[in-house]
């Protein structure tokens, strides 16, 4: 009799311990569920598609092809052309965003400029960020059209003798779409840097001045190191976002002329929605994910070291 009661007591204790241990998971369950639905399941599905053939829209049943799709994509010169264009587009954008963002942030943070002028320029500088990608594409298409405003001024000022085909020339199209992306993206850097600059203690600059540091030395040894966490975070996030840019490219050039502005995003879209090759599109999506993860790992490590 005594044995039975001890056994029941042990069972109750185990049950209570299990309940106690389950409580944190119960609190986490809505987030875990959301993560599963929004991230894990879609990613797992795309991984599955990339290893199969005949997926999504075909009468034939899917068949397992292993890494065949990866071999096919990695031996396609158009994929590497798109990868090269994407890297140029992303790296040039990130560098220019950084330079312009920091320059404008420092202008707006300067004590030389009055508060009214600062507010006015804050509005002007941030304007490109207000527009959506599709509006930006339409706007710049109109501006850069052979009969557009830009060519009108170029011809009028004598910089050119004939209309320049900014988006139709194989040589100019990639730099042009990169310029448009730079124009539309620098305000994000500017706002973030401005917040970072306003957080730097004046004491540091005063101490530097007492030590005889010049303006450039103050910038190099105080401003830049203080902004480093912001710079690294922004650069990594911007690189990932820019490699995913689709709307701007699609609506200005569609990846052309020829394949001069083909990006990984447009390459994937064409595979999926005009060739209906969803397996190959999933494969390129996985390769883009791998590229993003590579950068993402640096971002997380940087964040972790910053927190420590």
């Amino acid at each position: 009799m005594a044995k039975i009661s001890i056994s029941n007591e042990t069972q109750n204790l185990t049950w209570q311990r299990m309940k106690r241990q389950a409580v944190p998971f119960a609190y986490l369950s809505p987030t875990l569920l959301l993560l599963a639905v929004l991230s894990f399941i879609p990613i797992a599905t795309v991984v599955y598609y990339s290893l199969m053939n005949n997926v999504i829209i075909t009468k034939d049943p899917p068949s397992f092809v292993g890494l065949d799709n990866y071999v096919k994509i990695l031996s396609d010169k158009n994929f590497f052309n798109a990868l090269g264009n994407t890297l140029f587009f992303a790296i040039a954008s990130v560098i220019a965003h950084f330079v312009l963002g920091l320059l404008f942030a420092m202008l707006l943070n300067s004590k030389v400029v009055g508060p009214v002028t600062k507010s006015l320029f804050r509005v002007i500088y941030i304007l490109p960020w207000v527009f959506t990608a599709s509006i930006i594409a339409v706007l710049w298409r109109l501006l850069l059209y052979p009969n557009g405003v830009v060519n009108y001024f170029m011809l009028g000022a004598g910089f050119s003798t004939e209309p320049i085909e900014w988006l139709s020339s194989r040589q100019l199209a990639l730099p042009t779409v990169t310029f448009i992306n730079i124009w539309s993206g620098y305000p994000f850097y500017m706002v973030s840097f401005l917040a970072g600059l306003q957080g730097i203690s004046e004491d540091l600059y005063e101490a530097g001045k007492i030590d005889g540091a010049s303006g450039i030395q103050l910038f190099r040894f105080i401003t830049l190191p203080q902004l480093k966490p912001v710079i690294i975070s922004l650069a990594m996030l911007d690189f990932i976002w820019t490699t995913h840019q689709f709307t701007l490219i699609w609506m200005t050039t569609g990846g052309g002329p020829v394949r001069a502005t083909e990006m990984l995003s447009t390459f994937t879209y064409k595979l999926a929605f005009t060739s209906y090759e969803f397996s190959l599109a999933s494969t390129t999506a996985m390769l883009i994910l791998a590229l993003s993860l590579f950068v993402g790992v640096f971002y997380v490590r940087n964040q972790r070291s910053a927190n420590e």
Partner: protein
Amino acid sequence: MKKWLVGILMIAILLISGNVMMAQDPITLEFAQWWEPELPAGEFRALMDAFEAQNPGIKVELVSGPYSTTKDQIVAGAATGTMSDVVGLDGAWVSDFVKQGALASLTDLMGAVSYDASELAAQIQLNGATYMIPVVNFIYPVFVNLDLLAAAGIENPPATRSEFVDAATKLTDAANNVYGWVLPLSMEQPNGIQNDVMSWVWATGGSMMKDGMPNLVDNADVSSAMEFIKGMYDAGVIAPGAFSMREQDKVEEFTNGRVGMMVDSLAHINLIRERNPELKFAITALPAADGYEGPRGLPYASWGIGVAENSEHKAEAWKLVEFLMSAETNSKLSSIANAFPGNVKATPDFVQTDELFAAAFDVFQKGFLANEFVGLPVAENLMREFDEPFQLYLDGGMELSEFLSAAQDAWTGHF
């Protein structure tokens, strides 16, 4: 006991009335298309109301959106088996949807009700079965700016390729930003390959296919058309910006009087008139190669219709197709759409009332509808795969034979 009996009676009455009500519930057909937004407000719904009045047990729910959205919606529906019962189709999509098993055979549906198909102007068939019927057709003739033509001293619109080159050269005044012809080759919307490039081959009775396979290499008709376009490109008579230009840009250029001639859809006549009421323009058939006397192929785009394989109401869906293809409804629809009918007995009103449409109808009757991309697999992709080496050829990066070989190699993989 009485209460018990009354209870059973009430339940029985409820059940019977419920069944009767269910039996009277109308069947609702979903009809996904891009037509309603392109027609005057309320006109297409009025046609559906007329159909519902004729078929009391059937309701039609219109799922309307722009062309590109409708395509994405149908692609998604085909993938998930949730396609609308009746769908608006472009001929370029048919082969892919049939491959996916998303479209029902209209041949079977017609056979089930012994439908007489002799009034249908065309049927898009694959593997011996009809999957799409063109409801109305928009032909692509040449639009000419009469004021520019007169200013250049040209009396009549060009009828042959050499006359076209001559006219384009005379019309071009680059210093004043005026060009003879406009050629949209955007990679985003590569339909310029169909409407503005390959149409020159079809206008001379040529073909880009042979025995169901691509036939671009060593094809005199294709080669001469490409050389003809390249000649104009090199001569600088084509409006700049061709490689990123889309169809709407082309129409804007013509409407604003910056180009003398364009190949375009009749659907844009009213748009051009609204945007520039002062513009004087005429319509003529696409010029053929010098010395060609045969009938001229006319590029066209259709508002096609099909029935989803996953539809649970195929018979009712066919009734809607039959209604739209009847001479009376088809006349009304083609009149409000400014298009040519898909029923041979239908006559749109505008042919009697509008001289431009009358001229276009004349062009339509003298020629034949030609669009070889209709029914081909991944048709839009084929246009893009042709566009790429074609741009290189125009730009001097490829020779004609290299370009045609590259395009043919890319195409052959899809057949």
